[in-house]
């Protein structure tokens, strides 16, 4: 694609590749708006963001993006059904209490959801817990127990089981360890995971 997409974050790279040109995208917890800015400029996506932090919103406005301040745990009721092709929930699922409720909401307003989260069962975390007897700190879980924004601690295995129980179809999954993609034993070897989910019942009604 050229220079702009070469040096982007590995997780953004995966998401960027999954989104089709011209798609309608909502990014929950969009931060400085780097991902939706890229999707907008390089994929002609129609993008919107929700973000809590005032400074991050300023950064989005500087990029010309439309971003609304809001708490993503309560912020989707006003969106009509299926008004987005993709809803992105990248690196924020683990910070959400009502994760199941939010994912159902997200799959109501979007045809597909892209969920990215840190893997709590990475070998580094297991070693730290088993041999060190300490709450794990890894590159994808960098916080200490008392300053972490995370309230949910899940593994790739947990998430797969959760999707099965909830009836979410896993269309794609990518597992990352830094810049590298992990294929074998992701639940042990990947620091983070990105899933593309949909509701099987929705496939016929998609616009």
């Amino acid at each position: 694609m050229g220079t702009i997409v070469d040096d982007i974050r590995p997780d953004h790279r995966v998401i960027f590749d999954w989104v089709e040109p011209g798609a309608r995208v909502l990014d929950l917890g969009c931060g400085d708006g780097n991902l939706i800015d890229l999707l907008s400029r390089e994929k002609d996506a129609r993008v919107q963001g929700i973000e809590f932090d005032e400074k991050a919103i300023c950064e989005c406005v500087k990029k010309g993006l439309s971003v609304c301040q809001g708490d993503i745990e309560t912020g989707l009721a006003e969106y009509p059904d299926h008004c987005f092709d993709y809803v992105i929930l990248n690196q924020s699922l683990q910070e959400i209490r009502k994760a199941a409720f939010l994912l159902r909401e997200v799959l109501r307003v979007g045809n597909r959801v892209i969920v990215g989260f840190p893997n709590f069962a990475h070998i580094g975390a297991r070693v730290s817990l088993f041999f060190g007897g300490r709450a794990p700190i890894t590159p994808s879980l960098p916080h200490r127990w008392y300053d972490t924004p995370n309230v949910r601690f899940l593994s790739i295995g947990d998430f797969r089981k959760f999707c099965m129980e909830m009836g979410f179809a896993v269309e794609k999954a990518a597992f990352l360890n830094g810049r590298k993609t992990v294929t074998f034993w992701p639940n042990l070897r990947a620091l983070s995971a990105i899933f593309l989910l949909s509701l099987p019942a929705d496939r016929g009604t998609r616009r």
Partner: protein
Amino acid sequence: MKVELKTETAEPEGPPRALGIVETKEFSFAGPLTLESGETLGPVTLAYETYGTLNDEKSNAILVLHALSGDAHAAGFHEGEKDPGWWDAMIGPGKPFDTDRYFVICSNVVGGCKGSTGPSSMNPKTGKPYGTDFPFITIGDMVQAQRHMIDFLEIERLLCVAGGSMGGMQALQWVASYPERVRSAIPIASALKHSPQQIAFNEVIRQSIMADPAWRGGDYYGTGQPEKGLSVARMIGHITFMSEQSMEEKFSRRLKNDRLGFDFGADFEVEGYLRYRGANFVKRFDANSYLYITKAMDYFDLSGGRLIAGTGADTRFLVLSFQSDWLYPSHQSQEIVRLLKRKQVNATYCELKSTWGHDAFLVELEGQTTLIRHFLERTYLGKENGNGNHR
């Protein structure tokens, strides 16, 4: 490959320069305006000021709209006066409404008393001031009159309409009435409709004016303003403009004379402040205008499908509210944003941290300054992002 967007910078060069001396102009037209009440009003005069230069394409015009007791003097200085216009912090060379780049217009409202046709103006039918013969006006009527002025200035499409409080209502009304003539809107500390609490405050304000015997059913132009009633009305207003915290910081329980007077004089600084504000206000504002304009605000309601009729509207919005504003609380701005989202209109919303209460929009606030500056620049350069408009 698309062009990189990061080359322009929005930061002003050096410290902001001053606008200098400005003058209020008048625009008159015969009309008559057909008002929402069904009555007509004509001829109509609107007071306005302009700052900066209209470009050849007439694509850089911004209409700024004032709050309840404001006027057309938004920025710069009037000859011989020491205080600048009410939004001088925001309008001028290098400021967010950058007059080096944009042509900024500030319009007064019909029903007012600051150079525009209102209850204190001469009724052509009687040769005397209208008083309560003045027809009831709405925010929609104010905007209709302003549209005549924008037509006169030969501006087909405004780059932006912006304002705080009642100015925000006018901005929203512009989008509702003339969506094709507004590229973007910035309603600040405003609402889609007046709440019962807001109507209640306005009703107490009106009753305090009308309870003054000097009001004389609105026919006081030969005998003098209902000063007591109007000043109490303004005191009520000032309480609602501040937050509990800003009052604590400004006055606490400090005494004016270091001891309690044991009489009904102004013991506390806050009492002295309100009395001073009330007494000052009667010198500069017409009581009947206060009645008519508060009524127009109470009638304001763009809920339902009235703000955005269909879908596919391409006006961009920047909606701002302030944390300590309890007169126009953030949830009212969020209601605007929810409606825009339902209509799939491009909207940015931010609640800014401030302890200033409703007054915050008049104060120079970093968040407000930065957001407005960048929002306007992106809209002006056509570099709004995320509309799928790169195709």
